[in-house]
């Protein structure tokens, strides 16, 4: 059987709230104040961006120094098609920049008219973002720098790093990192068939060719035997509550009054219980063995809930294997 596989957009989006260590806190707060801090390692190197622990010895490192807002490109790559979230929305160069006074390089974007205007060894300086909050994006990007020196105004090309106590007013102690990824979700062959049947108000599982169990919903494989399932079997619509719980906390974006009952339901002919909400009966009268049937709302592609059929309760022996 060939049917069009279902597909739907899926956006996974969440903010990560992250706390900062003392070195990260000083660095990001410094960016807010247009000050770039590095950290000294035991062997006297200055790391920018600074880290909490020495990348070689893993020692805790805390000695902060101020480096220049100017530096040298150590490598670059021309990005003609910026992607969502990247520092600039016009074509730009990704660059690693060794700031004057630092021994390591910082990754960021370089605003330039084209790849011919960029080369390794070119001098650049920070372009600060107009609004700064204590984040790596407080550096809007780098731009070409034509001054001879290191930008510290003393006219010499070298940069003497100065110790810094890392203290600023109202230190930034955490960041909120937004993450968003877009997918086109497809549930695969078995679940597509299941979902399409549901829209026609039929519940269709798949039988394992080896142990003969019927899985609802089917996932395309028998988890016991590790073999593919293909034979479709219509089950239900009646079923038995095998176990249940009473939900007392309202879920966000869910328009269901609490308390309500969420149950495992063994549909007639199925060898695996699925779960669904029980309606049409007070929550405190739901019980194991209760006979139920699905209720589709007008235009609904899947059962909204299950309600009692009025049949006598099922005998425990008939569903104990499905608990």
């Amino acid at each position, binding site marked *: 059987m060939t049917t069009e*596989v279902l597909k739907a957009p899926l956006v996974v989006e969440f903010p990560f709230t992250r706390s900062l260590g003392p070195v990260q806190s000083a660095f990001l707060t410094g960016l807010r104040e247009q000050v770039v801090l590095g950290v000294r390692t035991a062997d006297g190197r200055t790391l920018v961006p600074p880290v909490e622990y020495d990348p070689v010895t893993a020692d805790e490192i805390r000695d902060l120094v101020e480096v220049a807002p100017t530096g040298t490109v150590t490598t670059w790559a*021309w990005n003609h098609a910026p*992607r969502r*979230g*990247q520092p600039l929305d016009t074509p730009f160069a990704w660059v690693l920049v060794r700031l004057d006074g630092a021994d390591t390089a910082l990754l960021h974007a370089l605003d330039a008219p084209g*790849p011919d205007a960029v080369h390794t060894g070119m001098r650049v300086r920070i372009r600060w973002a107009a609004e700064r909050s204590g984040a790596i994006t407080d550096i809007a990007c780098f731009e070409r720098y034509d001054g001879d020196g290191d930008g510290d105004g003393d006219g010499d090309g070298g940069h003497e790093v100065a110790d810094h106590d890392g203290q600023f007013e109202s230190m930034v102690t955490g960041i909120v990192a937004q993450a968003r990824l877009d997918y086109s979700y497809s*549930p695969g062959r078995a679940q597509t068939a299941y979902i399409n049947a549901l829209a026609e108000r039929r519940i269709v599982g798949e039988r394992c060719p080896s142990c003969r169990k019927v899985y609802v919903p089917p996932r*395309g*494989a028998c988890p016991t035997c*590790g073999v593919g399932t293909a034979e479709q079997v219509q089950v239900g619509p009646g079923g038995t509550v095998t176990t249940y719980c009473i939900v007392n906390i309202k879920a966000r974006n869910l328009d269901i009054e609490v308390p309500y009952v969420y149950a495992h339901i063994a549909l007639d002919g199925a060898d695996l219980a699925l779960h669904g909400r029980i309606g049409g009966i007070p929550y405190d009268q739901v019980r194991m063995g209760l006979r139920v049937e699905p209720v589709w709302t007008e235009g609904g592609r899947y059962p909204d809930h299950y309600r009692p059929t009025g049949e006598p309760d099922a005998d425990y022996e008939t569903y104990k294997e499905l608990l």
Partner: protein
Amino acid sequence: MTREIAVVAFAQTDHRRTSEELSEVEMLMPVLHEVLDRTGLKTSDIGFTCSGSSDYLAGRAFSFTLALDGVGAWPPISESHVEMDGAWALYEAWTKLLTGDTDTALVYSYGKSSPGSVRDVLTRQLDPYYVAPLWPDSVALAALQARALIDEGYTDEPALAAVAARSRTDARTNSHAQLRGSVPHGEYVVQPLRIGDCPPVGDGAAAVILAAGDRARELCERPAWIRGIDHRIEAHSLGVRELTDSPSTRLAAEKAGAFERPVDTAELHAPFTSQEVVLRKALRLGDDVLVNPSGGALAANPIMAAGLIRIGEAAARIHRGESDRALAHATSGPCLQQNLVAVLEGEPRHAQ
């Protein structure tokens, strides 16, 4: 005393741009059946199962538990999972076999990149404070490395194009590969890398069976003995690393014994052409070594499986008698951040 452990079977899917008609378990299961069939083993005969995958690729939470449906994990099996390429799952299985607890292990991994945008997905593995907020995609980071190699005279754009062409030409004999034969080198994606310098994006799965000692000899005519395997990682910050070199690869190779005797074949996990240049240098591979006869990751790069496939391809050549001593390499993270090296050998062949 160290136990002798070998790769005794390998199987992989045909790697394709999309496999949307299949769920992950539907994609994986045929490979599991194939690798078991090659040895005559059943799930219940396997002592330890270890897998590698990442939920971020397809945006499916706990996909590795659903993938277990394809194994048949009842009665309960001894099982583990790494959120890494399957090569690292193989490393865990190898250590498990070393303990003597069991004689056989099943290792599998899979990746479905087609539902998402893998260039963006991979940004989520970067330093969340200083790097991830800039969303530097995987091609951009590889391009920074490629530029450094060109600037320091290790390669140039025509040489990179030649790596791409050789890989896809070699892949003509690999029916599983996604890109085979003559493939246009195309426009810049992120300069200096062109489309042809980048791996194809696709879906796929692979599986390997490991066995110890005499059990390996029973299951396979010519086992691919793992003479050494090691993995090493470098600092996560790109600006701290020497991008034109791979000290972690070299150290892993040294620990795995790769430099004790020459290898005849190397399967390198170099998703970008420029990374093959770095790896050849770090591994001191001469022109007499056959590199990526399968076409490598430039011909098929199912993320989370492509490293395991390198070990599988190297082992399969030994099984077939086409190699006597092969090196397999797997990588993880941006710009070859973390590297695994395995040295595989077949026993001397005697005239029939």
